[in-house]
């Protein structure tokens, strides 16, 4: 990402791959190192679930463990907080052996998010988030402040959510509470086991974006398990591809893995569409953001026509009072007098966010009648549009969107 696209400040445009060397905005995460870790569930001689795995995860990085089922990725993750004890080898966090502390104390210092979330059904949202601070015996006033801060951080209104029980939440809301709970005691390390696996693809994309935005603020060392290569490419600073029996097949940046798979296994695992997958490395924020003609209910047709005069797309974007996109209005529906006919708007303008991968954005645009993507911010306000052509331009431009590994 050499060229900073218009509309993003330098702070927002932090290249995540560079986090390890960046002194400014120092990560609060800690280095996690696995040294020759082996886990055997049976007696000696049985095939190991994880075999002599060595891996160093930089402070503040997202390391995605990915591989087919039975590759030991979840086992590997669970050995870090000792939900599973390794058979041999050593794991350190910030240089300190995880065996040095009692397991419960170690776990209170490591955030944990799982697919089914595992919220405590008998506790309110506030009590769920407060679990680890309470175990650490924080004073009540500090816990209250922290809960409010965290709900705000994951984008949920404190007043309306704090007192609810998990049964009254949607899947996406539960997942966000799960993330807030994991972050409660500000742990340097977060473990996430298929955290967005149980939500539908659209909400999943949003949660991924939200988490990436959050990670830019908190800079934890994240160990993220998934079986989905696309998710790995999107979320990872580095990907560890494991193959059956817990053998490390390749550990590198997403771009290098896509460009230079280390083995036939890796090449086969990431799929034949490696070229297309590299689209997942670019983000909407890497594209030039065009400003569409905005029309609001109540605007006159004459006014809209005048403003569309020097617009080449042929469409105006209809937004509601809160700037949320409602649909596209065809130039041809703007003849005559009177207010804009909101009924004529073509619904289903695909919305994308700055963090959406170019692959997902392209896919959304190709499926819609108007091949323009409306870029919205985290509050669903339209902030610009991107075109399919922008994506192909970005691909042709070597200095552009798809960041090159070398």
């Amino acid at each position, binding site marked *: 990402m050499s060229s900073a696209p218009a509309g993003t400040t330098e702070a927002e445009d932090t290249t995540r791959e560079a986090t390890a060397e960046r002194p400014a905005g120092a990560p609060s995460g800690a280095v996690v190192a696995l040294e020759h870790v082996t886990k055997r569930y049976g007696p000696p001689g049985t095939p190991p679930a994880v075999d002599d795995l060595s891996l160093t995860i930089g402070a503040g990085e997202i390391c995605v463990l990915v591989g087919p089922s039975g590759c030991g990725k979840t086992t590997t993750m669970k050995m870090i907080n000792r939900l599973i004890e390794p058979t041999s080898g050593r794991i350190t966090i910030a240089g300190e052996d995880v065996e040095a502390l009692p397991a419960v104390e170690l776990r209170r210092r490591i955030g944990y998010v799982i697919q*089914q979330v595992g919220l405590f059904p008998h506790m309110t949202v506030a009590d769920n988030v407060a679990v680890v601070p309470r175990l650490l015996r924080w004073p009540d006033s500090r816990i209250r402040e922290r809960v409010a801060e965290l709900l705000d951080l994951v984008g949920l209104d404190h007043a309306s959510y704090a007192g609810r029980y998990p049964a009254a939440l949607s899947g996406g809301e539960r997942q966000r509470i799960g993330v807030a709970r994991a972050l409660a005691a500000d742990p340097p390390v977060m473990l996430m086991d298929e955290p967005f696996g149980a939500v539908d693809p659209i909400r999943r994309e949003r949660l991924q974006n939200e988490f990436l935005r959050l990670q830019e603020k908190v800079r934890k060392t994240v160990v993220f398990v998934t079986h989905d290569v696309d998710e790995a490419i999107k979320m990872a600073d580095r990907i560890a591809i494991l193959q059956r029996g817990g053998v490390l097949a390749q550990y590198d940046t997403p771009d290098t893995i896509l460009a230079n798979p280390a083995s036939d296994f890796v090449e086969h695992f990431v799929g034949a569409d490696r070229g297309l997958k590299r689209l997942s490395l670019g983000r909407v924020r890497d594209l030039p953001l065009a400003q569409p003609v905005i029309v609001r209910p109540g605007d006159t047709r004459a006014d809209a026509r005048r403003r569309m005069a020097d617009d080449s797309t042929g469409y105006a974007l209809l937004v509601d009072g809160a700037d949320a996109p409602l649909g596209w209005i065809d130039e041809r529906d703007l003849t005559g007098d009177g207010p804009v006919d909101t009924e004529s708007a073509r619904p289903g303008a695909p919305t994308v966010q700055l963090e959406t991968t170019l692959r997902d954005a392209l896919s959304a645009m190709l499926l819609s009648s108007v091949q323009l993507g409306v870029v919205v911010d985290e509050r669903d306000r339209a902030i610009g549009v991107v075109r399919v052509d922008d994506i192909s331009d970005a691909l042709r431009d070597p200095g552009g969107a798809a960041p090159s590994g070398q």
Partner: protein
Amino acid sequence: MRAGQPFFRFEWLVDNADQIARRVGEQLYITLIAIVVGFLISFALALLVRRYPRLAAPFLGVAGILYAIPSIAAFVLLIPITHLTLVTAEIVLVSYTLVVLVRNMIAGFRAVPADVLEAADAMGYTNGQRLWRVELPIATPIIVAGVRIATVTTMGLVTIASLIGHGGLGYLIVNIGILRVFPTATITGVVLVVALSALLDFGLALLQRRLTPWSTARAA
């Protein structure tokens, strides 16, 4: 019933108010002891099953066999050992509570979702904290449902213990009403047993709602 007597004599109620009140108290007292002792034994057994899941089948098997012994026989069989004491009555009553209490407690612990247990461990709860702060609260609705059934069943069984002189309202139903052929006492006893059972059941249902506000919480 002597000829010419009305079937139900209200004045008997008034004349015997003291005795009726005493029998109500006795009925509640005997039931309460049986439920509390049965609860504690079942809880201990359920904790063992939580630790060693394989014990579930033998525990439930034994509780089921105890339940299958006819209650009258059980009272009589114990007389040579514990005589005509309250202990004899309670041994039988407690044994009968086990089948439902043990089963519901085990079911209650099993109802805690695996992901919740995993999250609890990963948050850094100790084993004891996980039991008291996570598993028991979540198991509460099922445990209380068991206590409700056990209470109503025990209320009925207590009256049979009148055979060995510790029958609570059973004294009115059997000793006065049936043995002396005086329907007024039987009817009074039965009505009171049913009313008290309903009252206790209702009270426990309310208690459960108070203890588990989350179980009725749905989308606001």
